């Protein structure tokens, strides 16, 4: 049964063969003699255990270092000698030294020499060293590939075993390619010891190089009909990997008669395991081979996923496993856990699902923390399948929020968010607020964003929503993400007047609490924004809630405190300064104090604040008459949604690939599925941008005011017209469009100020205008980026100067220093004019239909006249891939959308496509950028969606054959 015991030792090389008597062999005697001579020539090196003892005896770190350094120096010197009999011992010592954290890379080549030795001890230590000291980037890999190739052909099973084990641990893609055929040969070996190892090696080879899958397919055929558990478990592991990797292979296994119907086969094995009698060899506390059971359950899950027939075939066995497994020990729960996952993932019967959820309910009450963690984890995965069943455990889950263990708290928090609905939002929010107050810093950001998201979805009324938002801002303090600030501002701005008054007062009250301005800057930002915006309502409006109003001087004193405090961030001060300027038109008495405070910022050290100070001061002097219209109340903003990166961890993409980006607008369009994702996300952006407009109004436009107010009226009128037209073209009803245009109108004063170069944000606008050679198209491009979501930018009007301004201004929006979610490609724009122009360019150019650079074309799809081609261009830091879609058919394709995914080791960025409409003969271009984080071959999965006669069509394809790319710098 154990072939290495039955093996005939005579096949071993003579020096390993015990039947071979070495005593009278001349060669052996000679060898012993040379060894003896060598030993006299050089003193015996320290024994491995002696060295360990010495190192352990060292009392201080310095002492230890001394011992290690001395030994390392010695080892290095021996490495220079050829044919050292002590190489093996020296490497072993080096490996110990390596584990202590000392450098040991100089032993790499010596390890390879050891593996090439004929002695088994040498090989054993040599391969051990290779596994520990080599990583994939080593040039020595070619050498080790040769050693491995030799040893894979050895007649000693343990030598083959060592080689397979090493290959399994350090196989690089090149090595995997070179040795795949050897592994495949060994997979068919009659020796189970070699066969199981080769099977796992194949698993690793496929992991590294999925294309190599096919050569292993025939060899998997017989794996599942074996009795040996080693073969079975490795075989199931290999097949699982293959099925997860490609749906074609999955189908192959389902249909392949060579496997005699894989599902019944697996069911049979599993049944034998549970019903077969006690087998001491594989028993783990009363459960027969849990390792194998779990692997089989997992493979069944993949086979049964979305397959009613396969699911039907495994229902019974899953029920049997779920009811028959002993649950007093960890082993049993391990299997139950895997079973539940399988039940929830396949098309199982209703009764079985109830059984599964009940098992999870039991898990949740288990005293073992590990089991509770697993239960929460699984509930989170299954909550979308069966919410009501999970709701029953709500109280228990909320209890887990108070658990001292971080892992459990995190799971409980995520699950809580998944459980919130319109009925329980009030109680859940109350619990989550309690949690948020006490939560660790790492949770606060995620939790607050999640709560805001839930409140947006399910809030019963505006008052409650506002209160919740405020509580979150207070509870999460500085950990709140910027998106919460902007979403709160939007919420307030779109609320009715009475609510605005109410919440402004609440904000004012919250600011009275000590430390709130330093520890809770987001709160401060929102609060001063509201006070500035609604100062008149707050101070002099109707007082329905009968709150106490502060005096104007109190108000100014508070502003004075923020603006002079060293603990308040620049961003918060920016908010406060704009707010103060606004207040100057809303207050009745203290206008002079406001002016004094603002003027004092004219000499502030921070450039941005200084600029604001100087510019606002102008509004109190020459241009007094402009102040009230400039500082008008902002138009009500459209509520945008926070991206649900964390709030909804259910995974919005059905694709397994992690890097799916839709049209360069990341993460925003995930929440809703209404209409065209691009337009939707752009609509969502609108609110943010309007918000930024306020900032621009606060700083930029005033730079115009600072110069001569020679207004190019006709110019502004031209733009005005153009804009109205454009808005109409777009057909998106934007409520505040008119106001926006008013703002633009104001901005038209800017051209007169071209010569004044002001630092900071204002400068950007002017600089850009200065250098703007952009045309009408770039304006539309700019608009696109800016959030109008113009899907049809074909209006071919005569370009005017004013358009440039709008383009650059809207472009400038995305770079304004205020918080906003990243807009497409301009993520992280640092307010530099050059960068902004760069960001505009791709969009702008794409309207002219970019001519992709010449190079090797990869055809991704050529179907029904639709031709998608990719042109990769390798650059210094990233690979640019230009996608060109040509519509060769006679039909018009609408809502064309390209999604792409790459492996985990790459980062993909997609820029905005040139359009989404493909008339016959039409062309859409889009640029993608790929950055490699490790050494791998790029493959890209593309999903192409379009509508033909109102019917949605989806094409999927995989593209490979991209040029090699050097990985970027490691983290």
């Amino acid at each position, binding site marked *: 049964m154990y072939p290495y015991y039955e093996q005939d030792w005579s096949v071993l090389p003579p020096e390993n063969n015990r039947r071979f008597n070495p005593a009278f062999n001349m060669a052996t005697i000679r060898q012993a003699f040379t060894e003896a001579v060598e030993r006299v020539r050089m003193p015996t090196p320290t024994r491995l255990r002696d060295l360990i003892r010495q190192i352990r005896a060292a009392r201080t770190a310095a002492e230890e270092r001394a011992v290690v350094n001395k030994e390392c120096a010695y080892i290095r010197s021996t490495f220079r000698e050829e044919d050292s009999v002590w190489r093996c011992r020296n490497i072993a010592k080096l490996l110990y030294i390596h584990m202590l954290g000392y450098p040991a890379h100089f032993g790499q080549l010596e390890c390879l020499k050891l593996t090439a030795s004929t002695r088994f001890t040498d090989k054993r230590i040599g391969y051990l060293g290779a*596994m*520990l000291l080599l990583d994939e980037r080593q040039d020595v890999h070619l050498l080790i590939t040769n050693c491995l190739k030799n040893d894979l052909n050895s007649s000693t099973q343990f030598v083959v*075993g060592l080689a397979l084990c090493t290959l399994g641990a350090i196989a690089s893609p090149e090595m995997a390619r070179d040795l795949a055929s050897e592994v495949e040969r060994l997979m068919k070996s009659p020796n189970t010891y070699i066969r199981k190892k080769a099977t796992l090696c194949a698993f690793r080879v496929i992991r590294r190089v999925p294309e190599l899958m096919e050569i292993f397919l025939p060899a998997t055929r017989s794996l599942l009909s074996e009795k040996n558990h*080693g073969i079975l478990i490795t075989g199931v592991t290999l097949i699982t990997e293959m099925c997860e990797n490609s749906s074609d292979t999955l189908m192959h296994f389902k249909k392949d008669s060579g496997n005699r119907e894989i599902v019944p086969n697996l069911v049979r094995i599993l049944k034998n395991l549970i019903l077969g009698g006690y087998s001491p060899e594989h028993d783990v506390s009363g459960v027969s081979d849990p390792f194998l059971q779990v692997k089989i359950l997992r493979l069944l899950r993949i086979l049964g996923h979305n397959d009613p027939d396969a699911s039907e075939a495994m229902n019974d066995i899953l029920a049997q496993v779920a009811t028959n497994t002993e649950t007093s020990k960890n082993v049993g729960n391990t299997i139950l856990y895997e079973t539940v996952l399988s039940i929830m993932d396949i098309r199982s019967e209703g009764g079985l699902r109830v059984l599964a959820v009940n098992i999870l309910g039991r898990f949740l009450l288990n005293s073992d923390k590990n089991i509770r963690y697993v239960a929460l984890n699984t509930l989170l995965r299954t909550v979308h399948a069966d919410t009501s069943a999970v709701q029953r455990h709500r109280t228990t889950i909320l209890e887990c929020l108070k658990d001292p263990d971080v892992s459990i708290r995190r799971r409980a928090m995520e699950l809580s968010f998944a459980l919130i609905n319109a009925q329980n939002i009030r109680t859940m929010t109350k619990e989550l607020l309690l949690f948020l107050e006490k939560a660790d810093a790492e949770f606060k950001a995620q939790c607050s964003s999640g709560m805001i998201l839930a409140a947006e979805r399910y809030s019963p009324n505006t008052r409650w929503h506002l209160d919740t938002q405020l509580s979150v801002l207070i509870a999460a303090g500085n950990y709140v993400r910027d998106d919460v600030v902007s979403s709160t501002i939007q919420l307030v701005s779109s609320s009715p007047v009475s609510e605005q008054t109410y919440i402004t007062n609440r904000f004012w009250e919250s600011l009275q609490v000590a430390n709130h301005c330093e520890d809770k800057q987001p709160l401060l930002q929102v609060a001063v924004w509201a006070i500035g915006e609604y100062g008149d309502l707050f101070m002099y409006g109707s007082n329905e809630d009968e709150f106490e109003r502060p005096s104007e001087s109190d108000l100014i004193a508070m502003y004075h405190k923020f603006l002079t405090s060293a603990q308040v961030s620049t961003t918060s001060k920016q908010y406060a300064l704009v707010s103060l300027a606004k207040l100057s038109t809303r207050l009745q008495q203290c206008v002079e104090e406001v002016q004094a405070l603002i003027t004092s910022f004219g000499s502030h050290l921070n450039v941005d604040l200084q600029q604001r100070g100087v510019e606002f001061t102008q509004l109190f002097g020459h241009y007094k008459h402009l102040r009230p219209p400039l500082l008008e109340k902002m138009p009500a903003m459209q509520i945008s949604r926070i991206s649900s990166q964390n709030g909804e961890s259910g995974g919005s993409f059905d694709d397994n690939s992690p890097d799916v980006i839709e049209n360069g607008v990341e993460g925003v369009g995930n929440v809703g599925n209404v209409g065209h994702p691009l337009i939707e996300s752009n609509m969502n952006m609108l609110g943010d941008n309007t918000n930024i407009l306020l900032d621009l109004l606060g700083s930029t436009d005033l730079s115009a005011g600072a110069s001569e107010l020679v207004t190019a009226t006709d110019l502004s009128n031209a733009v005005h017209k153009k804009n109205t037209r454009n808005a109409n073209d777009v057909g998106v009803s934007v409520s505040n469009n008119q106001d926006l245009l008013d703002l633009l109108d104001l901005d038209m004063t800017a051209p007169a100020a071209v010569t004044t170069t002001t630092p900071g944000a204002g400068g950007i606008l002017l600089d850009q205008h200065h250098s703007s050679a952009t045309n009408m198209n770039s304006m539309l491009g700019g608009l696109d980026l800016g959030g109008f979501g113009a899907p049809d930018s074909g209006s071919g009007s005569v370009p005017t100067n004013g358009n440039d301004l709008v383009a650059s201004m809207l472009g400038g929006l995305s770079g304004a220093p205020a918080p906003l979610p990243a807009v497409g490609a301009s993520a992280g724009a640092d307010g530099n004019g050059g960068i902004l122009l760069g960001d505009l360019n791709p969009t702008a150019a794409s309207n002219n239909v970019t001519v992709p650079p010449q190079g090797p074309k990869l055809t991704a799809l050529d179907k029904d006249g639709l031709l998608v081609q990719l042109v990769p261009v390798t650059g210094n830091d990233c690979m640019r891939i230009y996608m060109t879609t040509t519509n060769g058919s006679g039909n018009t394709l609408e809502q064309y959308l390209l999604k792409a995914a790459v492996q985990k080791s790459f980062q993909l960025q997609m820029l905005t496509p040139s359009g989404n409409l493909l008339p016959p003969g039409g062309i859409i271009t889009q640029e993608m950028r790929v950055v490699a984080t490790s050494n791998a071959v790029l493959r890209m999965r593309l999903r192409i969606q379009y509508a033909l006669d109102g019917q949605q069509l989806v094409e999927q394809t995989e593209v490979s054959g991209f040029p090699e790319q050097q990985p970027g710098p490691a983290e």
Partner: protein
Amino acid sequence: MMLFMLLFSRQGKLRLQKWYMAYPDKVKKKITRELVTTILARKPKMCSFLEWKDCKIVYKRYASLYFCCAIEQNDNELLTLEIIHRYVELLDKYFGSVCELDIIFNFEKAYFILDELLIGGEIQETSKKNVLKAIASQDLLQEDETPQSFFDDHGLG
């Protein structure tokens, strides 16, 4: 698939490291340092799982030694605990009630045993008997080729 396995003492000293993913040496050291500190800071009653970067850490303490494994998101955490336990059982059988010192002084043996249990981060053998038999045969092979009579100072010493 298991990404790596670390054994370290209560004092934070690394006793064994097995990497199934190719990381540069620097990254390995950083990961080890981070995990050792995080795990040692956790209280004994906390659960054995940690979410860390994009993988899951499963750890368990046996006497003075922590066994810590990183697995992928889809892997079964409870099963990983069983794998750790199986490894401990194997060490125990091989050394005869194993202690930290055995693993320090015979670290290479501990690696050999692990390599007979796992390959490429997956289990290759679920029978304890088979693993130990394979190890014993290989030890015998090693012993045979070490001439005992001529000079005693041979092998690893």
